[in-house]
């Protein structure tokens, strides 16, 4: 059974969104996605959300957010890892044959959140929390481990962060951060050795919604034109323990990619664009080595350095991937892009990974 993407939208990239409340942001994005798809909210029969209570600052945040995202008198579920994980569940629900049109929505107003305490709250209370593990320290441990495993030097991580910022500077959907020279990034202070401050993608505010449809829905609604086919998804997770062997292995990263490619029935070489969620330049350096891929296919949008609303970043990567295979990626469009994939990671030191593969439906590729 084929599943199609029929509409996408993302909130304009913003470091601090002051004009709209979170629910207004998400409402606007879901409405834009529905308009992009040419369907009405009343036709939607299920909604899958990807969001985090702790980052949203309230228990059961989907109570407030489900309706703005499109979920009123519809079947609704929330996953908490990643917006891209919500896409996986949304796809599974459509593949049951019991649904026809679904929304997948994710968001985060990072500027309203004290991120470090939230990350510290993710530490188990017996060992991780007392020794001060948080997101930054975990990324530092990851950087150290993959540096040793793959021989990655600090300069490469800085160079990759600089390159991502340059790519993002060409992307009209990106934050508009100033491009930085690698030397300036390399001169920034350590935050968790060997990780330096500017090697990290800064958090931002954002939201994204994707409209998925079944083949049956498209047959019954011929005016709705698909943007892309969602061909495969995969996800996997590593041990919670951040021992060196776990951090070096990138096991769940490789596993998630393997599962998605198998489902899509393609090889990695067949992908024209790979939108990676790389919280730091170290992550990207490790990813290209683990996958054995060239830099020129990596995150034309600027990836995580283009915008980084936590939890939602992976779904924004998926939007970028769909825009690529539908020939609508604008200034960062890769000519002839037929297949693209988006990746997301979650948990301390990329504990969990998610991948989704998209394919052009033909006739729309630039």
């Amino acid at each position, binding site marked *: 059974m084929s599943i199609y993407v029929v509409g996408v939208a993302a909130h304009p990239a913003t470091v601090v969104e002051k004009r709209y409340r979170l629910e207004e942001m998400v409402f606007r994005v879901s409405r834009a996605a529905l308009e992009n798809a040419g369907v009405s909210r009343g036709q939607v029969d299920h909604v899958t959300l990807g969001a985090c*209570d702790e980052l949203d600052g309230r228990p059961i945040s989907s*109570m407030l957010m489900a309706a703005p995202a499109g979920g009123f008198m519809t*079947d*609704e*579920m929330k996953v908490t890892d990643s917006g891209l994980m919500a896409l996986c569940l949304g*796809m599974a629900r459509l593949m049951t044959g019991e649904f026809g049109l679904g929304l997948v929505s994710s968001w985060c107003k990072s500027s309203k959140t004290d991120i470090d305490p939230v990350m510290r709250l993710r530490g188990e209370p017996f060992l991780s929390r007392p020794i001060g593990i948080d997101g930054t320290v975990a990324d530092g441990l990851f950087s150290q481990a993959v540096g040793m495993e793959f021989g990655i030097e600090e300069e490469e991580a800085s160079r990759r962060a600089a390159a991502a910022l340059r790519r993002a500077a060409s992307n009209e959907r990106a934050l508009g951060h100033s491009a930085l020279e690698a030397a300036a990034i390399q001169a920034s202070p350590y935050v968790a050795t060997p990780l330096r401050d500017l090697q990290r993608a800064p958090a931002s505010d954002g939201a994204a919604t994707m409209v998925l449809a079944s083949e049956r829905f498209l047959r019954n609604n011929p005016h709705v034109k698909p943007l892309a086919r969602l061909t495969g998804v995969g996800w996997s997770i590593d041990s919670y323990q951040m021992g060196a062997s776990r951090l070096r292995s990138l096991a769940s990263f490789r596993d998630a990619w393997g599962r998605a490619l198998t489902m899509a029935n393609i090889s990695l070489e067949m992908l024209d664009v790979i939108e990676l969620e790389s919280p730091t330049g170290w992550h990207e350096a490790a990813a290209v080595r683990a996958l054995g891929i060239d830099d020129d296919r990596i995150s034309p949008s600027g990836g995580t350095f283009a915008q980084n609303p936590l939890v939602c970043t992976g779904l924004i990567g998926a939007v970028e991937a769909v825009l690529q295979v539908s020939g609508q990626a604008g200034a960062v469009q890769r000519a002839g892009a037929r297949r693209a994939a988006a990746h997301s990671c979650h948990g301390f030191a990329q504990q969990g990974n998610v991948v989704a593969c998209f394919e052009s439906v033909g006739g729309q590729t630039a």
Partner: protein
Amino acid sequence: MSVGVIASWQSAFRTSHPDKTFIEQAQEAAVGALKAAKMTPDDIDAIVFSLAPTFFMGVADADHWAVDAIFGAGKPIFRVHTGGATGGSVVHAAYALVESGMARTVLMVGAERIAETPDAQKVLNLIFDAFYERDMPLSTNTSVALAMSRYMQMHGVTEEDFAQTVVRHRRNAMKNPHAHLKGEITIDDVMKSPAIALPLKLFDICPRSSGSAAMIIGDTASLKRYQTRPAFINGLSGLSDTYWIGDRITPISRTDWSSFRLPEYVSRRCFEMAGISDPFKQIQVAEFYDPYSCQAYMQLEADGFCAPGTAARLDREGAWDVDGGAVAVCPSGGTLCTNPIAVTGLVRAIDAASQIMGTAGKMQVKNVRNALATASGGIGQFHCMTVFGAEPVHN
């Protein structure tokens, strides 16, 4: 494809489990279900983790912490969180993975540790809108008390009528080794229990329970391999209502909060999928998500077991009794006796499926062909239903 339950496990539920950590609780459930299924972790294709707000426990994303304990490393796993409806939504998510062909077998597992917070009500108070509703003050108790008052006024039902439910549930729970509250009590005991938010009194309200649960489902081939008497998942449905309770009580509301009408829409779709045209005659066991004494009646009426306003009268006539009743309502004692929020919906599903599989022990109702389980979250904003059957209706 037929999707069905292979095995399940649940802990004894009580206020706290100081002898175990959260991940040990989750592991106990996962191991229990695997042993019951005679499966190993390698036989599990994917895991769905059942975990509602982590503010109760104080460890965010505790599902990540539990990965090793539940044999999840290297497997596809995600967490579902729809408030109190979480456990029910988890069943639906796992079903989607199997029915879609993404997995042959799925382990659902979760744990609740609500007593880690001194007052769960203070956490729950934060679910309400900060600008309009939180200062009223709305709480889970006051919002249900408002609905209960209106229901009483509409249908002439009394506090004593609701107390019957409490008496029956606590008596049923005496046969449930996992139940938190149980025992022989009287209507007078309920009436004399301390007032919380009138007409709700202490005994009209569920306890705060801790514990863990797990269930394994599989596709047709897995069912043939691991279970000779599965409970087939024949119907599923869920809906999300408006956040605003005020919008659920106006004359033009799509649903009426005072009568808990959202389940009407949910059950209609679910019964259609499960081939149920007359629930009163075709469903033998109903494991409702009923943390308050009024909510079983409301669901019985909304789901079409009886006409609006008649559930209390039928209760007096014994219609909902385990022995001799037409439909055994919450033979486990239901949510009114045990409410480990993260897994309550999953426990409801386990208790319903067990009745089909003939593994309900002393709670077993005779000749059960169809059993339903519900789950609600976010002050009734989210509601879902699953119908289990002895025979598959989808091949």
